């Protein structure tokens, strides 16, 4: 756990170093220790661009991984995650609706962080509840995933329709957003992003005790005194806040949510949430930073799409789970 924390610090500093303008370690560390910077340009790059970007990566990693853990326990399905179940897509649809409606009714507040978060959150809640209601009827775990993927396609279809009826300028900004990126978030948006993630994490923390019991199934959990309905509400609320806000600011980011909980279970040999909870938070932040650093292709001056990197890191983990875990 401490190793993960140190890794986080190490990656965080590294992520400040790498980017389209090459900087040195001494620049970054000097600035972090409040020394006088080499020149104003360096400090601007670090403070205005890279610090918010790295902070966003950390928050998004934490949020998506934690909601992945919540969903895997909630649905008793190791392949559940915000992306696979279409929760991401629900949030996307909410945001798309806001972006395109904003162009029809040019009112300033539509673009504010709050509306964006609210729309993404509502979209996420809607899909989460929908998937949950379907899961109550279908006991088969694979069917649930297929339903999730179909809901994902369905909302993507709706988004495509919106795009079809939109002007070119909005399409471009929306398409850029759908690639997934930690770069579009500045300090003024972080002011919304950070508190939402904190609220989501606190809700999840509230559900940590019943979640261990839920691993045994709902009947066992109820027999130990778990209020099943209240716990479900907490998990849906928390998962939707975390996924929704992250999607609102960074776009739909694939595979972090599904892969990180598995890495932690494998790493710590446990499904005890009291261990997994901090582990997933740290590991999620680590992996997100790592993905962002790789996306920068250090030394090349090029930048890869973030979702390509997370997919390359995450998809093998999912395949590994399917191959080596019984009882899926």
């Amino acid at each position: 756990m401490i190793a993960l924390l140190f890794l986080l610090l190490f990656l965080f500093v590294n992520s400040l170093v790498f980017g389209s303008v090459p900087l040195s370690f001494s620049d970054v560390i000097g600035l972090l220790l409040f020394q006088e910077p080499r020149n104003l340009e360096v400090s601007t790059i670090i403070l205005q661009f890279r610090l918010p970007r790295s902070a966003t990566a950390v928050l998004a990693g934490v949020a998506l991984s934690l909601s992945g853990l919540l969903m895997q326990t909630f649905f008793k399905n190791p392949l559940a995650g915000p992306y696979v179940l279409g929760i991401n897509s629900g949030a996307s649809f909410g945001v798309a609706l806001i972006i395109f409606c904003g162009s029809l009714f040019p009112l300033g507040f539509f673009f504010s962080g709050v509306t964006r978060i609210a729309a993404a959150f509502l979209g996420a809640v809607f899909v989460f509840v929908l998937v949950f209601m379907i899961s109550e009827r279908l006991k088969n775990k694979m069917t649930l995933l297929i339903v999730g993927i179909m809901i994902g396609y369905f909302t993507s279809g709706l988004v495509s329709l919106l795009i079809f009826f939109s002007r070119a300028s909005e399409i471009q900004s929306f398409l850029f957003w759908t690639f997934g990126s930690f770069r579009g978030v500045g300090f003024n948006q972080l002011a919304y992003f950070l508190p939402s993630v904190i609220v989501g994490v606190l809700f999840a923390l509230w559900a940590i005790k019943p979640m261990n019991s839920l691993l045994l199934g709902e009947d066992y959990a109820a027999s130990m005194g778990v209020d099943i309905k209240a716990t479900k509400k907490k998990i849906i609320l928390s998962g939707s806040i975390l996924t929704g806000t992250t999607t609102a600011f960074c776009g739909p980011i694939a595979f972090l949510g599904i892969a990180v909980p598995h890495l932690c279970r494998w790493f710590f040999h446990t499904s005890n949430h009291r261990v997994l909870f901090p582990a997933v938070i740290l590991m999620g932040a680590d992996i997100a930073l790592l993905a962002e650093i790789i996306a920068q292709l250090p030394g090349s001056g090029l930048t890869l799409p973030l979702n390509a990197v997370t997919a390359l890191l995450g998809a093998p983990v999912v395949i590994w789970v399917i191959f080596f875990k019984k009882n899926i």
Partner: protein
Amino acid sequence: MELYKTDGLTIGYKKTFGETILGENFELRLSKGEMVCVLGPNGVGKSTLLKTMAGLHTPLMGKAYLMGMDVHGLRKDQLARKVAVVLTERIDAVSMTGFEFVSLGRYPYTGGLGKLRERDINVVLKVMRETGTIEFRDIAVGKLSDGERQKVLVARALAQEPVLLILDEPMIFLDITRKFELFQMLRTLSVQKKMSILLSTHDIDTALRFADRLWLFGSEKKITAGSPEDLMLKKAVHDLFKDPLIQYDKTNGCFLQKPQFIKKAYLVGEEDYIYWTRRVLERKGFAVSLNQSDGTLKVQVQLEDGLPVWKVVYQDGRNVFHSLLEMGDFLEMIREDCLKN
């Protein structure tokens, strides 16, 4: 002392249209420290009964009282300190150590984050010693055998420090030795801790030996309660399984599959070999008769130079076999002949 009673309890499921009633107007009583076994055919509603009594399932009508308190009106964590369950759901996907798993049972006693205090740890270690699961303390529950895992499940339930332990078919998947071990353990617990135990099982034999009381849950949505011996003498257990293929063996007190005989056979010979020879004959569909003129078949077991030899006379043909396997194959041929005609 009366611990649990039901008042017009009606169990079943609510459906979109109407409801499925599995049992009506149950007036059941459970005393402190008593061990009760629920017997009944598959699908009759034993699990629903147990879950309803444990407060996990809402009754369609009527009430259940634990120490005078309404089970379904009680707060869940209050109830969890009184009633614990072992269910049939498999839990093998869980990777927790034995200790972590058993300590889940402390749920109703711990605070907001579920942190164990000293008393909780002591209780967990105590029940693990009592159930002989302390050796699985640091072993992942998923790696245990069926018998070991069942004990860990019982330990987890005991960590709730219940006054009533409800187990749904706890002996399923267990071999005979583990079965007796588990039953013996439950018996000891009920005596030492004055804990009431309610369990469902298909193992009539074991239930008859260990239970203080039986609840016979028949297909007429009724439950007959009584001591095992009384119920046996009244042939109530017998009536429970009204299957023409099953017959009750009075001398041994157990149920057997009623054989379907097609022919009769006359059997004589060495006493030591008679029993197993008879088993082969019966399996192949020949009722053993003691009247020589009666049989289609005559079987004689003899010892020749200390080795058994089976001589079978059938339609004037004489056949000699040196093992029951060979004789069995021959009987199979006769049976197929008979069935063809």
